[in-house]
């Protein structure tokens, strides 16, 4: 009897090890092979700056309370509330110790597009790498070049405040297995260069879906509800639906959307509000052609 139990237990332990091993193997941090980040040449800093604004880095990483050029001090610290706990954006200034100044392009690129930290750890998807995964190596290289020109900050941001089990980084591998994909979020006619550009900006660097798409209990997007609006993670109000089926902006023309992103005014001359204020400031720095591409894409996604 004792022997049988022992056999059973060791069998379970064995299965557990195999299962755990399989889980680990399936969900281990997966950076790109080194060659992905090689041969990109000198960064184009002007493009890097455009990518920087498209990516909205300052909205979370700027030193809280800064205005104007002070926004370029990416010392982090701002809290990002979520149903899983409160995240604090880290220092991503080029400071060698407090920031990411000592990182290589590959380390930066793998954080951006694979959610893998410098020590090979999984990063939390509050950092929107599940959108940034769509970014081209060229844009990452240009962005990295630009970010190294920004001021250094020595502030160290507070750690994330996450209850168990969300404080287990290992589990993020499972999240990635389920939700980290670079497939298109919506089918649009990519033969149209404007739509293709809009799709790249919205689904990739712009990471619009991170707030405008509802999430399931595990924090992944509800794929059929792309940009259909979602509860405000900060607690009150809602993040609006921005598909052509939206009650609030479905009636806007593409040029209405582009002009809102540029000026912050709706067609009724109401103004931008909430966390979109920060986003609109970034969008205002893009080229008119890019704002038009975003608008064209938003008019082309399925109406929900």
């Amino acid at each position, binding site marked *: 009897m004792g022997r049988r139990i022992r056999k059973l237990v060791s069998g379970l332990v064995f299965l557990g090890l195999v299962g755990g091993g399989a889980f680990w193997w399936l969900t281990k941090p997966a950076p790109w092979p080194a060659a992905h980040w090689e041969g990109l040449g000198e960064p184009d800093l002007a493009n890097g700056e455009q990518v920087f604004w498209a990516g909205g880095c300052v909205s979370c990483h700027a030193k809280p309370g800064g205005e104007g050029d002070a926004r370029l001090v990416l010392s982090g610290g701002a809290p990002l509330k979520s149903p899983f706990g409160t995240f604090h954006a880290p220092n991503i200034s080029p400071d060698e110790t407090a920031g990411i100044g000592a990182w290589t392009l590959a380390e930066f690129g793998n954080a951006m597009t694979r959610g893998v930290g410098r020590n090979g750890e999984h990063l939390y998807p509050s950092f929107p790498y599940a959108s940034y995964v769509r970014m081209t190596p060229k844009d990452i290289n240009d962005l990295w070049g630009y970010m190294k020109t920004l001021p250094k900050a020595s502030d160290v941001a507070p750690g994330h405040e996450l209850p168990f089990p969300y404080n287990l980084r290992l589990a993020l591998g499972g999240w990635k297995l389920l939700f980290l994909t670079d497939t298109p979020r919506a089918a649009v006619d990519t033969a149209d260069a404007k739509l293709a550009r809009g799709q790249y900006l919205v689904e990739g660097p712009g990471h619009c879906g991170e707030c405008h798409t509802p999430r399931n209990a595990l924090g992944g997007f509800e794929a059929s509800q792309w940009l259909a609006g979602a509860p405000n993670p900060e607690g009150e109000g809602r993040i*609006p639906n921005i598909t052509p089926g939206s009650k609030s902006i479905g009636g806007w023309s593409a040029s209405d959307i582009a002009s809102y992103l540029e000026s912050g005014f709706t067609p009724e001359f*109401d103004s931008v509000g*909430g966390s979109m204020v920060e986003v609109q400031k970034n969008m205002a720095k893009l080229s008119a052609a890019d704002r038009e591409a975003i608008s064209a894409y938003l008019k082309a996604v399925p109406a929900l």
Partner: protein
Amino acid sequence: MKIRALMLAAALAGLGVTAVTAADEPQAVRQQLMKKVGAATGALAGIAKGEKPYDAEIVKASLTTISETMKTFPDHFPAGSETGMETEASPKIWENMDDFKAKAAKLGSDTAAVLAQLPADQAGVGAALGGIGKDCGSCHETYRLKKN
């Protein structure tokens, strides 16, 4: 049974009263004021975008509307008007009333400053509108909640 009917009648009467005076409720008054400011901003934007010809009188009237409205706008947020009538006012207004008032005052004084040196052409109106838009956004960022 009778009591219930009576209560229902009283409730209906109550609704009727609310409907009659709805336009005077602070929620409705401030919504109207915001619409007024929006219309004035729209007139300025039409000129800034070149959709309408520059007209000094319209520019002056629009700026005056915004500046004057801001003098009284924050007075329409008394205790008890935090909810109802589809208000988009954030509870943070009542937590930080002084800051809320300061933001309204800033839009008022910035607009008054533009009035004192009236923009003389389309480009001038555009530049002024940029500053006004920033004031709108900086208040709406914290104090307005979109519900839909």
